């Protein structure tokens, strides 16, 4: 810690403080051993030529210069990752909200729908990626079969560089129930009195939405945006299973690039450089979003956080 910690004066409080440190001691150790330490070490590695054997030699900014000026794969991964985030994130935020608004209506049997919409969001992993690979299959996949009903020609979802990003966005949006459920929780925490008084004042549904629901929901939107941002930049599994980064590096996302660089080419040092680049991008965007939050996120009343 950079700042000086003042231990409490009274005996009882000092005892409580010591116990507090003991309780969080495992976390502190874990943080140092598995987070902070490795972070610093990978930063160090990024300035070396370490390739899984021998000792790391300091080479200064060479990895960074290579990354920015010579590495075509870096550009591929940057392009594909940003394309995915730009395609997925706004859709996830808006569609999730739209569905949550529908779900928030007083309609019989709404729970059944809630389960149906939420289920895809909690299923993930290899099985789901394999499933979607077959859904997107050009010849025998069900998506093209359905589109054929409307006279659409077979699309090579996972083999055509023009379509593959659309396929990834479709697959990810399948899990929109995840943000829906967060919005629902947010919607249900809005005090009903606000709507009652607005109705008395003669505000119609549209006005209620724009002047009550949306402002009250901005903290939730903010949360969905931040977590979605951090998650979307780390997309890996679906691409690893479905395309392996192809076709022609169109889905060579950042995570794939790091994985292949580290564990296939064994270029540990350069993989660390790429990983730090990813971290810097995520951190910069997160901080940027946080800095704008003052202007658009509305917190009702001052709440004292214990």
């Amino acid at each position: 810690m950079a700042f000086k910690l003042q231990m409490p004066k009274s005996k009882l409080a000092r005892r409580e403080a010591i116990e507090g440190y003991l309780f969080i001691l495992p976390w502190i150790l874990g943080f140092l051993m598995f987070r902070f330490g490795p972070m610093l070490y990978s930063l160090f590695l990024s300035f070396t030529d370490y390739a899984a054997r021998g000792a790391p030699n300091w080479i200064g900014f060479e990895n960074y210069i290579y990354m920015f000026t010579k590495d075509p794969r870096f550009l591929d991964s940057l392009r594909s990752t940003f394309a995915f985030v730009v395609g997925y994130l706004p859709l996830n935020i808006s569609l999730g909200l739209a569905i949550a608004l529908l779900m928030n209506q007083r309609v019989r049997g709404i729970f059944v729908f809630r389960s149906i919409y939420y289920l895809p969001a909690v299923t993930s992993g290899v099985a789901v990626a394999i499933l979607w690979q077959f859904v997107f299959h050009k010849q025998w996949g069900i998506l093209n079969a359905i589109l054929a009903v409307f006279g659409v020609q077979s699309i090579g979802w996972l083999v055509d560089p023009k379509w593959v990003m659309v396929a990834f966005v479709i697959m990810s949006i399948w899990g929109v129930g995840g943000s829906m459920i967060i919005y629902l929780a947010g919607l249900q925490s809005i005090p009903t009195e606000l709507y009652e008084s607005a109705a008395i004042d003669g505000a119609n549904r549209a006005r209620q939405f724009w002047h009550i629901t949306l402002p009250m929901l901005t903290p939730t939107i903010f949360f969905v945006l931040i977590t979605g941002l951090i998650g979307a930049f780390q997309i890996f599994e679906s691409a690893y299973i479905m395309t392996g980064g192809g076709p022609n590096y169109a889905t060579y996302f950042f995570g794939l690039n790091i994985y292949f660089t580290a564990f296939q080419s064994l270029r540990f040092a350069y993989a660390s450089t790429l990983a730090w680049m990813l971290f810097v991008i995520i951190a910069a965007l997160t901080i940027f979003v946080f800095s704008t939050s003052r202007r658009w996120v509305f917190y009702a009343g001052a709440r004292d956080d214990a």
Partner: protein
Amino acid sequence: MATNAETMTPAPTITPRAVDLHLNWRQVTQTIGIYILLLVGSVFLMVPFFWMLSTSLKTLAEVQTWPIVWIPSRFIWENYPSVFQRTPFARYIFNSLTIATGGIVGTLIGSSLAGFGFARLRFPGRNALFFVNLTTLMLPAWVVIVPHFMMFSYIGWLDTYLPFIVPAFFGNAYHIFLFRQWFLGVPRELEDAARIDGCSTFRIYAQIFMPLSKPVIATVGIFAFFYYWNDLIYPLVYLQSQMKFPVSLGLRMFQTANQGVVDMPALMAASMMALLPCVLLFFFAQRLFVQGVVMTGVEK
């Protein structure tokens, strides 16, 4: 805060009371509209699952038929047992359960200890440290994966389950957060009464707070189960021998082995079985998921 999660009922929508028939009609058409929209969405969301089930029961010939076959003419149940003959799938399941059990126990102990410390004990730097804990949520696993690999390789833990289980005992940032949120809501009086009786802080944690925390324990446990069951990256990096693979990695192996032959029915049957525990758990414990979300989403 957290406790009312289970009673999450749709909030009343404020519409002017229906005083005449005209307004009632509007409401009816609106309800029908909502149903139609939700139904269309449901179909889109459920079709992939249906496709998975249907394909898993087809013959290879029926998979490669155009126009596609929606419901197999004959259900080939043998596709399921055939998975166990062609790949050590039972072993994979056992391995996944081993990793998940160790990981869940570790996560519950490590995260609840830290969560209790952050929620109920006052010490200098507490808020700063908790903030540090939250910022680690932003740290991509990729930044630490190479050093982790080197570290575990150095101490000879590669190709064992220790790299999955041991770190769990040091707590997980998000689960620490959930435990802290829960513990913050436990009434002070309980703690005070125990203190007057001379209870040590550790006993207050273990014998008063933990028994009161079944909902959050269940939520964290389920989240952790899903994580360990689905995780692919770490098994990919840490494990080498096939007999130690969890379901995720075994399924990946099965997929690449069949790439040329494209034995879709067996592959889909295997995927179905990999997904089934998660789907069942979801239906039995949906409330717990929602609770986890409520504890995170609304508080932020």
